[in-house]
């Protein structure tokens, strides 16, 4: 079984992933995915970190040429080996490879469009996690040690980045029910019940 967890910042995606991994023995890939992709491609981890879950395709960025400078002196269309597009391709190949390697044991991917990359994999199940604003602020400020205002600012920014990333690479809408198999609110249901629902109902592990 392969589980793909999409999540709002502060909705508890990482905790849910860790718990499921502990109870079922499935392997958890969050940032480790980047290490794996780096190892596979021979590129440094920094390259992947720089574009992680971001898409440099906004209109403003388009004008100021993150992809293309004003006068690209012969920049190729796909932007070369270090472009976000090329790195996304490497990363998605890594996701497919890890899914194959861990098919027996099962594995969990957090974010990175795994549900799109593995869309044709019959063993893949996907979930999107949301939570109430208060819970998210509490979690974010606890995790990063910042004030409530800063947490709110961060949630807005990161969710915006994730939307752009997912919409561009997966060509569907981030956080929309039809893009996932189930959507859960960890504040309404509670962490424990969400974890149980995912294990028993979505993954159907007894």
């Amino acid at each position, binding site marked *: 079984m392969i589980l793909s967890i999409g999540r709002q910042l502060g909705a508890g995606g990482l905790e849910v992933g860790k718990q499921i991994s502990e109870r079922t023995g499935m392997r958890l890939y969050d940032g480790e995915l980047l290490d794996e992709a780096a190892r596979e*491609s*021979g*590129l*440094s981890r920094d*390259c992947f970190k*720089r574009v992680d879950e971001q898409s440099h*395709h*906004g*209109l403003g*960025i*388009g*004008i*100021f*040429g*993150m*992809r*293309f*400078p*004003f*006068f*690209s*002196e*012969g*920049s*190729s*269309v*796909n*932007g*070369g*080996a*270090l*472009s976000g*597009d090329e790195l*996304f*391709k*490497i990363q*998605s190949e890594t996701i497919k490879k890890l899914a194959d390697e861990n098919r027996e044991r099962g594995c969990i991917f957090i974010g990175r469009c795994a549900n*799109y*990359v593995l869309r044709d994999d019959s063993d893949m199940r996907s979930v999107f996690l949301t939570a109430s604003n208060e819970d998210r602020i509490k979690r974010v400020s606890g995790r990063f040690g910042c004030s409530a205002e800063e947490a709110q600012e961060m949630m807005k920014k990161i969710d915006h980045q994730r939307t752009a990333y997912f*919409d*561009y*690479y997966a*060509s569907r809408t981030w956080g929309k029910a039809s893009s996932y198999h189930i959507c859960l609110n960890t504040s309404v249901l509670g962490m424990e019940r969400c974890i149980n629902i995912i294990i028993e109902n979505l993954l159907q592990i007894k």
Partner: protein
Amino acid sequence: MKELGTAPVGKLLKQYALPSIVAMTASSLYNMVDSIFIGHIGGNVGPLALGALAVTFPFMNLGAAFGSLVGVGASTMISVKLGQKDYDTARRVLGNVVMLNLIIGMAFMILSLIFLDSLLRFFGASDATIGYASDYMKIILYGNVVTHMYLGLNSASRAAGSPNRAMYATILTVCLNACLDPLFIFTFGLGIKGAAIATILAQVVSLTWLLAVFSKPEHEVHFVRKSFRLDRHIVRKSLAIGMSPFMMNAAACIITIFINRELLTYGGDMDVAAYGIVNRVLFVFAMIVLGLNQGMQPIAGYNYGARQMDRVFEARNKTILSAVIVTSLAFVVGEFLPAMVANVFTDDPVLTEKSVRAMRIASIAWPLVGYSMVISNFFQSLGLPKQSIFLSLTRQIIYLLPLLVVLPRFFGTDGVWYAMAVSDVLAFITSVAVMQYNRKKFVFNDMCNSAD
């Protein structure tokens, strides 16, 4: 991909740069052939017609700007989707490309036709040249949708994993144009109109072929009826990606307008025509360097990412060496063979003399141009766009525009050519300085761990 980190750099450069160089050179030859035939229209029309053609350059820049606005974004998205084997979305992008090109091509045609005469005046047309310029432009504009569609589908074809097909389409267009030009210009006696008809007809043939290819369902990316419906997300994304190439072409358009207007103010139609010749000649060499740059990009980029700086520098130095050889060749042609080159375009003694002078001055700093062009692209390859934008802006706008305004006041039309030479020298100095200033970016803390 890993071969980028291991194979000999020289071999990689050849392998990656050659196809780009062929494509780039082919498209610059296309323009050159048109100019050569137009320059030889008899009855003293040739030189004026060349001037009229130079007046339409800004239109061509604008057309290219709108073409890349759709084309670059769409082909980027197609190649991303193909990388994921997501053929359904790739097909939808293709359908959207066609629709967007139709809409933008039509809008550009209608607006340009309405304001044609005032636009041409603004671009540097005189009473003597405006007739020819408008005759030529009208036909080009009627065929504008064809041009946009042809360029759009050609880059889509490149992105869809058929770079060879895209290259054959380009070569087919160039050859057809070269054959049809003398037929329509001289045999049918249509003059400059004939050149425009030949251009559009050649594109119609290539477009028909591309349309036929994309209609075949056995290709992974092909036309599907429902894919033509415009998708808000696809449109927005492809326009966002296409925005910087659009700006780049729009800026080129502004510079061309400046050059034409200064030449017309301080000289006359013959000087504008001389610019037409010089531009065509130097353009070919610039395009070869652009092809080299495209070849360097993946090699420098990958090895920078893999922290193999010795290979990054080897790729950069080999590209600089090749580029400097190419631009030095332009220098040799410009300094020692200018009359021969000018005579390829015209027999007119006045125009020849002006072109020779222009070429001598404008190409004086060209051995340096190769270095500046490669360095600017080098930063882009490493994912350092700020440095790259800065270098491109200095070379092509920040230095050139003020010089174009100031120097002609003192030196007349020579001032325009001096402006080009001086900005090339300044840009070279800036490139060396930026390279020095950023050298600490090329030292990594984790260098020693990545020796494998």
